[in-house]
């Protein structure tokens, strides 16, 4: 297996041949398979969501939740195979689509608070040797004043958004729906 990273020469995915030439004498071609990060999946047993509770924003008191989980990177094969490679840089960008029923006016993403800034990267986060990373700092979180009515947390939503997750050389688009009391990720 061969895992292209953002620092390496970009190779097409799939089977590739390689030969070594020494003193003008090429060797026989040897095949290797280039895995390209293509999809992400939640690692079973790692998914949890907090109970809806009070929170604060620049707009005042709100309510919301946080959902955390671990993600596995998969390649382009059918069926997709896990890419078990450390060191793939990961970061994300989130943009509202529609509707925006929770009135979200902005996002903080993986590189918020670093020089890269919101919706930019990289900022030093990489996959583990299993090809995994966590959505856990803080996790998929929403805090909206729309969810706080009559001094209590309420239900409401959704605000839909596209999360573009950058994994090594790839960008993977996922759909997020924020509700007052839960968050769905890629339909789950």
């Amino acid at each position, binding site marked *: 297996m061969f895992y292209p990273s953002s620092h390496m020469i970009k190779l097409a995915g799939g089977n590739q041949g390689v030969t070594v030439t020494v003193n003008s004498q090429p060797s026989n071609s040897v095949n290797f398979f280039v895995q390209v990060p293509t999809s992400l999946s939640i690692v079973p047993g790692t998914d949890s969501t907090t109970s809806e509770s009070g929170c604060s924003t*620049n707009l005042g008191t709100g309510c919301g939740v946080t959902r955390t989980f671990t993600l596995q990177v998969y390649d382009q094969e059918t069926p997709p195979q896990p890419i078990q490679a450390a060191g793939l840089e990961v970061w994300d960008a989130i943009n509202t689509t529609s509707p925006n029923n929770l009135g979200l006016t902005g996002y903080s993403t993986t590189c918020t608070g670093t020089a890269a800034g919101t919706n930019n990267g990289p900022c030093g986060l990489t996959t583990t040797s299993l090809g995994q990373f966590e959505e856990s700092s803080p996790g998929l979180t929403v805090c909206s004043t*729309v969810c706080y009515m009559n001094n209590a947390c309420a239900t409401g939503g959704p605000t839909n958004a596209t999360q573009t997750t950058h994994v090594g050389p790839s960008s993977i688009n996922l759909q997020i729906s924020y509700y007052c009391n839960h968050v769905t990720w890629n339909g789950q």
Partner: protein
Amino acid sequence: MLTRIGLFLLLLQIQPMSAAASGSQRPEDLNAKLQTRVPGYQLQANNFVEALTRVAADFRIPMGIEWVNTPAAKAKVSLSWKNVTAWEVLRAVVNTQPSFKIAVRNGIVDVSCPDLIPDRENPFKVKINEFEVHNARVESASRQLQEIVNRTISPPKPQGGRGGIGMSGFSNADDPKISVQLSNATVEDALDALALASARKIWIVTFSANRTLTAAGYRRTGGLWTSRLVPDNEQPVWDQFHWGDPIPEVAVRPN
């Protein structure tokens, strides 16, 4: 080849210290590491910061670095020693740069340039009332600290209307979760505490060579992963590395 063999032998000698370096460490642990004497040590690095982080990684020393992104600091470093301690190596590296100082603070090695960045212009000298994280990844703790410092030095303006924010944030699943609790501490103290508690043992602040201050009166900071100019309302920023992480060359490449 001889250099590689020399480094290999050196790493063999240093290896027994690695286990003691994970998680919190006592001041005497750091002193023991700093006084570790090796028969020989060679150091080649693309710049000052890379040289410091390489020594930190080789000797498993937690370190905070506050440097100014000047041409002098971007010069390659090539040094070698015989019968030398880690402290002597670090002092020699720091002495390659005018105005830099080295000290031990809060159980980590601190490299800074107080003559270039006066305390009153240094946002990392600012005291924060409370900083507390429980069972969190270091990336989450660092983000919380950045929000506190950012709010302290440039409080956000209240806004009207209804709405809210969404968040996400990735972290390394291999790193341990940490707990830190500090009161009335400087930002430097907080970063030191994160370095001691987490697997990211090195924190680096990159000050701009431009002496223009932010609206709040502090020197601007940038990062090593990008040459992007960080807006005042996002200041200050820093980078954190594990021992052995490659130092990105984006911001420290030679002029």
